[in-house]
């Protein structure tokens, strides 16, 4: 078994990052495989739309879990994976949005406008996406330099509002079937991760 220092050292290697990118791309690769093998079921558009939403939510959980995990495991190396995870979360959100505007609405702006009025959970999802934009657009190194570390960090605290939009979007979407089991699970996970920011930090790390 690897001891603590050696697994942290392994994560420092450039190859670790390559592996992490490959892992983050796995759901997407799975869809491509499924499309070509007719494995998405009777309604492929719906299957892709749901799966991309699921993965956005899962990656949001993951990105918010990195700081608590770093403290819990005393492994600062984990922070090296936070930005790429966040960017992946955004990429899956973009794909989720694309599924909606393309597969569901056929790129018809008028229909989307009508749909936004009809379905509150759609505009909640879109609002969540809007709050992701400044984070994604400032995710590269030059943006950190340009904004300065402190301002960059303040801006990126926006990530804490994303669970609210994501969960309301998911809750409202499931409300039609009174089927909230998964919604409560994600709420619990994200709730714990946000609660840690309020009550759990400070002892082992100065910020985040």
């Amino acid at each position, binding site marked *: 078994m690897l001891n603590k220092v050696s697994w942290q050292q392994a994560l420092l290697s450039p190859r670790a990052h390559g592996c992490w990118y490959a892992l983050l791309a796995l759901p997407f690769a799975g869809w491509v495989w499924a499309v070509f093998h007719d494995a998405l079921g009777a*309604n*492929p*558009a719906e299957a892709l739309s749901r799966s991309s939403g699921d993965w956005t939510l899962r990656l949001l959980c993951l990105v918010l879990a990195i700081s608590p995990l770093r403290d819990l495991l005393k492994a600062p190396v984990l922070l090296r994976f936070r930005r790429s995870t966040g960017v992946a979360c955004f990429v899956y959100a973009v794909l989720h949005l694309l599924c909606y505007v393309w*597969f569901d609405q*056929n790129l018809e702006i008028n229909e989307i406008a*009508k749909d936004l009025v009809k*379905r509150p959970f759609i505009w909640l999802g879109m609002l969540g996406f809007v709050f992701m934009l400044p984070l994604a657009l400032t995710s590269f190194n030059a943006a950190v330099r340009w904004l300065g570390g402190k301002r960059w960090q303040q801006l990126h605290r926006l990530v804490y509002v994303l669970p609210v939009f994501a969960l309301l979007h998911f809750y409202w979407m499931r409300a039609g079937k*009174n089927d909230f089991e998964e919604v409560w699970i994600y709420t619990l996970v994200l709730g714990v991760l946000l609660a840690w920011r309020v009550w759990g930090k400070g002892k082992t790390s100065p910020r985040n």
Partner: protein
Amino acid sequence: MLITQDQGFHHPYPSEITPPQVYAQRRSLLVHLGAAGLLASGAGAWAQSAAVPRPGKLAPLDAKVSALAGAQAKDNITTYKSASTYNNFYEFGTDKADPAENAHTLKTRPWTVEIEGLVKKPGSLSLEELLKLSAMEERVYRLRCVEGWSMVIPWVGFSLSELIKKVEPLGSAKFVEFITLADPKTMPYVGSRVLSWPYTEGLRMDEAMHPLTLLTFGMYGEVLPNQNGAPVRITVPWKYGFKSGKSIVKIRFTEKQPLTAWNKAAANEYGFYSNVNPAVDHPRWSQATERRIGEGGLFAKKIKTQMFNGYEAQVGQLYAGMDLAKNF
């Protein structure tokens, strides 16, 4: 036979024209049937054999092609795979893949349907008795789900009116209530808080007596798969799919309009009538278009939803003078 638009044989959409491969399948099926010696009944019998090839999964259920107006939709028939793996049957789970995975536990024999309420001949009918009650017909109906997707399915059964006539409803019977199976031992999600169980549905007497309302025992030339409502269900093609109760155990004749499962769960969203109507939106989404399952791949445009799901010529008069926005 007089063929008129009123009878539902008018097909303004090219999508309703049977594609050559489907037509060819019909031919090859006839050849097979002939080879099997099943075409013994002489001249004219060819016109009565089933329209779709059997998937070969379950016991065959012989039927003649229905000559009823509106009973042979010319749309492309949905694949058996899609029709039997993409289902709403909440007793087996709310995901549409759940019923196909979980419904194998459903025990469809022995099966009885209780007839009760305002009828001269109440009692209990076994599945065997029901199957013999009238000649089996194959009917190709469009199925429009309230969620905004649709399929085209060749059902096997006979008009519910055949059963209703046999049990002789009293003059006071104005509605028919359908009570479906709710067996927590075989249905894992009975007891979940999604709906109240058993799932019940209902029709006005004239709707139940309409010849298009089908007491359904099979699809694609075979008995119903469990996930599609075996061994006996209702199919009402001009209403949203949830009006067509599955795995029926009781039919009750009442004077008052019965409560229905979805109406109890969300009265402002699911009315008693729930006729397919592109002009009356669901409170939370548009009903103007639908995704036809299996047609055109990922980038296919949705198709326009038709008034009464395209059965206006047959059923429109049932609702003459009614405000359909109010009676949704």
